[in-house]
């Protein structure tokens, strides 16, 4: 028998380091407008979540929330590869994925603040962001389930002949739960138009993924169990993500069936607001903070001839947007008490008897 914590002290496991060459994808065939858009999107996610964190510290965001600071390239890269009517499924760590689809900041932030102008009127909260209008079919907070639900959306798209592709995001830790296995097999059997994206940030909550997973690459090393090709990519390089996403989405749309993509990344902060993230080797944290997807991308744009000033302008615009959203969210009313009892049923109410 093997007990990981007999092999190393807690937090003293071997560090996993990021790639060291950020220029690898400079020459990739990604059109410049797409690249500028990717940059802007990542900044939106970054500045939005930093603000969410501040508001948390000011106790305006209650409960918990899970940030994806440092992981923005994945949501951004996939967002850019999708058609407006494509469908996405995210987790409790889903702010970025929601913004990626074009959902405005105000309702998202207002939802975190529990206001009536929140995306779900305050009833869902940070962990359940949903905007059907934008193809954001929900954020799910119990590990595993939404992979199976994503299959259903893909099945329906195929049945209805809509040509929509479904993309489902989840974490490395999620690859060890039963629903992952059922969903992947099911998608492969029926050749569903769905792309599963494992955001491998190397940790479940406070446990390194390597300690509790039988294989080194939690998703890619499982692909063959579903007859799928193993795909592991640099999740901090928006171009690598974007191109991989484009291929997988096109394949799905063309009837080529599901894909499973493992995008390796890192979260800058803790698992959730309460967590300082102390269980991670310092050199690992440092290296990944240096290999920040926004830094990587800004460097690339610069090498490709975009001047600092244009990028600064984007940053400023985004910052202004975040400020505006903050004001609008804080200005939102509390939900009307009556709404606590609405929308359980399709008739709008929650009555259980006559």
């Amino acid at each position: 028998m093997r007990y990981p914590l007999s092999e190393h002290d807690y937090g003293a496991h071997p560090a996993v380091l990021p790639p060291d060459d950020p220029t690898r994808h400079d020459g990739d065939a990604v059109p410049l407008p797409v690249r500028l858009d990717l940059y802007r999107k990542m900044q939106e996610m970054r500045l939005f979540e930093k603000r969410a964190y501040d508001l948390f510290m000011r106790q305006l965001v209650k409960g918990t929330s899970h940030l994806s600071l440092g992981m923005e390239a994945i949501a951004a890269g996939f967002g850019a590869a999708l058609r407006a009517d494509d469908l996405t499924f995210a987790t409790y760590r889903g702010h970025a994925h929601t913004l990626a689809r074009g959902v405005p900041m105000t309702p998202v932030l207002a939802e975190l603040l529990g206001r009536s102008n929140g995306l779900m009127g305050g009833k869902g909260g940070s962990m359940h962001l949903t905007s059907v209008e934008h193809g954001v079919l929900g954020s799910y907070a119990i590990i595993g389930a939404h992979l199976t639900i994503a299959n259903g959306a893909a099945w329906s798209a195929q049945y209805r002949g809509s040509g929509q592709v479904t993309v489902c995001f989840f974490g490395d830790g999620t690859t060890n739960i039963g629903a992952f296995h059922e969903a992947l097999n099911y998608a492969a059997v029926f050749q569903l138009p769905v792309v599963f994206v494992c955001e491998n940030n190397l940790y479940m909550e406070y446990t390194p993924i390597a300690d509790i997973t039988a294989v080194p690459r939690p998703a890619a090393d499982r692909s063959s169990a579903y007859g799928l090709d193993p795909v592991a990519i640099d999740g901090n390089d928006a171009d690598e993500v974007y191109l991989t996403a484009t291929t997988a989405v096109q394949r799905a749309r063309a009837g080529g069936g599901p894909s499973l993509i493992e995008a390796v990344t890192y979260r800058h902060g803790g698992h959730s607001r309460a967590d300082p993230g102390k269980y991670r080797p310092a050199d690992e944290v440092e290296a990944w903070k240096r290999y920040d997807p926004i830094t990587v991308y800004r460097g690339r744009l610069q090498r490709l001839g975009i001047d600092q000033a244009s990028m600064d302008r984007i940053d400023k615009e985004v910052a202004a947007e975040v400020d505006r959203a903050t004001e609008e969210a804080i200005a939102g009313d509390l939900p009307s008490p009556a709404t606590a009892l609405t929308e359980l049923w399709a008739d709008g109410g929650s009555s259980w008897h006559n």
Partner: protein
Amino acid sequence: MAQLTYRNAVARGIAQEMRRDERVVLIGEDVAGAGGVFKTTEGLLDEFGPRRVVDTPISEQAILGAAMGAAMTGLRPVAEIMFADFFAVCWDIVANQIAKTRYMTNGQVTVPLVIKSGNGGSLRFGAQHSQSVENWAMAVPGLKVVTPATPRDVVGLMAAAVRSDDPVLFFEHKGLYAMKSEVPDGEIVDELGKAVIRRAGTDATILSLGLTVGRALDAAAQLASSGIEAEVIDVRSLVPLDIRTILASLNKTGRLFTVEENPRLLGWGAEIASIVADEGFWDLDGPVQRITTPYIPLPAADSLEDLVIPSADLVAATVTKALRS
């Protein structure tokens, strides 16, 4: 008007709705080629083809997740969970996802689906294939819950379930599959949330569901011969619950009995008893009594199983004792 078995009525109800609405699809283990392990979906593959009637792997979470995702995006799936005991392997999808998503999204998402399942005991299948678990579903806000007791009601309630924009758990009773009775020709559509008085009476109200409807009726017949006129109500729908019919009956009879197949603790009758102890309190002439399977898993042996699921005799004896004391 034709004689139809309860099991064939399931297929008839589904077929009625599939003919009407292209968005209705059926998935589950062995529901297509084999026509269902209980033969409740026989003929559907032939009529509707492999695109609408789909055999799946043994992956209950994947089945219900697929149904949910499809329901969220324009289809109206019917999914089968072969034995209701197996809800336990996919309860997250049912209780945490299907039931809660509309509320959490403040109504953005609608989840019109039906989960049909073989529920209940009396077939000597033992503890893991015989449970009555309507009460599991009743406890979770956001699920409609029905149990038909006759072939006619199977058709009517299935139609209502498929047409409902809310998720419906449709509990078929395995012990009734072989039951045969008249079912009217033509389309049958019921309304969810309506109990039915199966026998009128003045001395006691007996609530029953699924398998226990027949037993309650048998008990009422016994009671009548000793001068007690019991009113037997088939509850049919636990959510929504037809409280009015129940309270009106109690108002007439003054005594309430429930006949539940589920084990005692938090069986469906507990909720009704608690409602009656509140809203019907001043109508009660005596204690509310619940007749249930004892607090045990079901034993496999026929002799033991017959002992523990409430029988007509037990119902009659309980009512007699209560009314005579």
